[in-house]
């Protein structure tokens, strides 16, 4: 026990002295959290569109105004000599609405007046949202023009948990989880592979400390660093994104203990296996971070990933922690929905730690 604490204290002293590492530990995660939370959004606003009005009647102008009143779209002028398709080609507009000739006459007579909408589908998701919006704008307009045309069925839509459809509430807790899949393992891996690279590991072998004491000491030290990161991260969520616990925070707290252990244990495993700092950084970056970024449901649901890749997500710790943090900060279902997360995370963490231990034990014998 004494040796574990000594190891942990030595590790923390080392972190404190290295300015670059200290910056990586406490400041950079928060900068990235802020950047991710701000830049990773799918809710488009102010999308430029052009309207070509071939009818030029009161009704067609009223229809154009219906588009101008939406928040999603911004109508830009179409030059008199250019075609709508040119605006899309140039990227000046993302969609073009073409109101046909005789629009007013047909609409009033009851002959279906066909409005053509061209959507730049380069960005598939935005195109899908635009298509839905285009449909809604037109249907509402068609109804608003006839006072007697009350619909037979009217849906009253309630958006639960995030009524403003603020994507920060979705991405913020997600980015929060992904940050811990990058920085704590990075620091832990660096510390362990440095010992291997600079051969100070031989002194460890020569000393009376055993493999598990050495590993636990390092794990405890970087777990404490991770807890400090976590607390600052919660403050960033609170003050930058206005996100705070919506219900009982205990599932998140318990899950955090397990998740941070899991992340640090991953770094310890990488560092113990690779006595080369540059290679260790790359491995943490690619495996730890890339997989957490892509296969955790941070941006799009995991269920959309092809099955051949989806199984990998089962072993990505961030995927479980994202569910947990979204529940704690947005949804608030609490223990009944989340009880399994701390268990799964602990198991994955213990596996990482066991691999590191196996590796270390062998080195000790062979050295």
């Amino acid at each position, binding site marked *: 026990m004494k040796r574990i604490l000594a190891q942990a204290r030595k590790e923390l002293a080392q972190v404190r002295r290295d300015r670059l590492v200290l910056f990586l530990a406490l400041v*950079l995660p928060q900068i990235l959290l802020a950047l991710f939370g*701000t*830049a*990773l*959004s*799918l*809710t*488009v*606003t102010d999308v430029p569109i052009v309207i070509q009005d071939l009818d030029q009647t009161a009704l067609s102008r009223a229809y154009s105004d219906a588009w101008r009143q939406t928040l999603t779209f911004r109508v830009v002028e179409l030059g008199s000599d250019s075609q709508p398709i040119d605006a*899309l*080609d*140039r*990227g000046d507009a993302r969609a073009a609405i073409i109101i046909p000739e005789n629009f007013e006459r047909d609409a009033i007579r*009851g*002959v279906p007046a066909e*409005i*053509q909408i061209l*959507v730049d*589908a*380069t*960005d*598939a*998701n*935005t195109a*899908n949202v635009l*298509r839905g919006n285009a*449909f*809604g704008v037109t*249907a509402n307009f*068609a*109804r608003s*023009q*006839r006072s007697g*045309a009350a*619909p*037979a*069925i009217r*849906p*009253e*839509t*309630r*958006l*639960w*948990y*995030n009524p403003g*459809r603020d994507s920060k*509430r*979705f991405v913020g807790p997600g980015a929060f989880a992904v940050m811990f899949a990058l920085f704590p393992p990075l620091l832990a891996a660096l510390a362990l592979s440095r010992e291997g690279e600079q051969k100070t590991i031989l002194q460890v072998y020569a000393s009376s400390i055993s493999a598990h004491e050495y590993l636990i000491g390092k794990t405890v030290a970087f777990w404490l660093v991770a807890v400090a990161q976590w607390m600052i991260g919660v403050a960033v969520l609170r003050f930058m994104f206005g996100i705070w616990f919506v219900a009982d925070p205990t599932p998140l707290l318990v899950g955090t203990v397990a998740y941070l252990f899991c992340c640090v244990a991953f770094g310890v495993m990488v560092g113990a296996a690779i006595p080369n700092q540059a290679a260790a*950084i790359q491995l943490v970056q690619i495996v730890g971070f*890339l997989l957490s970024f892509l296969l955790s449901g941070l*941006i*799009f*649901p995991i*269920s959309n990933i*092809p099955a051949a890749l989806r199984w990998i997500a089962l072993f990505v710790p961030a995927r479980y922690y994202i569910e947990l943090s*979204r529940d704690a900060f947005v*949804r*608030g*279902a609490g223990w009944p*929905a989340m009880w399994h997360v701390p268990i799964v995370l602990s198991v994955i963490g213990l596996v990482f730690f066991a691999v590191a231990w196996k590796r270390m034990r062998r080195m000790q014998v062979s050295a």
Partner: protein
Amino acid sequence: MRAMLDRLVGGRLVPLFIKELTQLGRNRRLVVMLIVPPTLQLLLFGFALNPEVTGLKLAVVDESRTPESRQLVSAFGESGSFLIPAQYPSSEQAGDAIARGDADAALIIPSDYAERRIRGETASIQLLLDATNANTASIAGGYAARIIESLNRNLAAQRPRAARPLSLTTTVTLLYNPGLQNSWFITTGMIGTLLVLVGSLVASGSLVKEKETGTIEQLLMTPASATEIIVAKMLPLLILLTADIVIALSVARAVFAVPVRGSLVLFATAGMLCVFAGIGIGTFVATFTKSQQQAQLMAFFVNPPVALLSGVVTPIEAMPEWIRPFTLINPVRHFATISRGVLLKGVGIDILYPNVLALLAAAVLLVGISAWRFRKQFG
């Protein structure tokens, strides 16, 4: 002019260039690094980032239990957008299902639904959407609105014309990517991110290695100038990384069937400029660092903003207003516009020239600054 050319070709540049090229050629790890991670990343991004919203689980609470309400439920079921795994007896239970994540949305039909429909009054129904994921909620809401609207239309057709909405129909044509393949969007932009990231990694790696082993001093002792050394270092990298452009495009074509509708020359030029920008960033970072791992850690400060503020993964229109101007100085943003323009839209230089110029400016600036830093440090 001739004298300048002589100085360039006849001077020390060529031997230095050959030295760098042989050094790179002998480095097996580097060759692997140039091929494997970019290919893997392109595949991962292309496959994993899929925004499709299908199979939404809808919890149905039918308090009306009439032919009218069943017609509504089956309209949702038949749309293909919603799955109805179970009916729930009360709205509380449906709400719990959403909280547990067992359902993405709930449809609640009140008990007076059929009555109001028969009397010709507007019948309200409740639609609850889990908006934790704002994007999915928007799309799901759109799907539901469409289903109800088409029902409304059919019902309105039985009424006198004055009580019908205006007959407007919309035909939506999806241009450039009619199958709404998100992989086309991601991979066309991701190529630029990869070129910049790999370029900067390789450039800083090769320079820092000389610093670490002290061979940079030996190079500086030769009659070659600092400029010649740095140019000779960059050129072979450029040639090597050009291979990455070919590999990336081949993967995008072979795996995701990304079309090539415009000029490949323009695409390759943009790719080379991206590589240049990457080499510039890498060299710049290398002048600040003493060791390989320091250079890699420094890259953590540069890479994320370059990758994120580019419109590659998420659209720029979804970023907050104040952050959008910053994307204009990002070479990857311009590459993405050019790449999507050439490959998907099939437009040419006449439309893309502002982006080409911006990319050129970024590349020249980054290489210039890094060469200046290098000369200041060693010249």
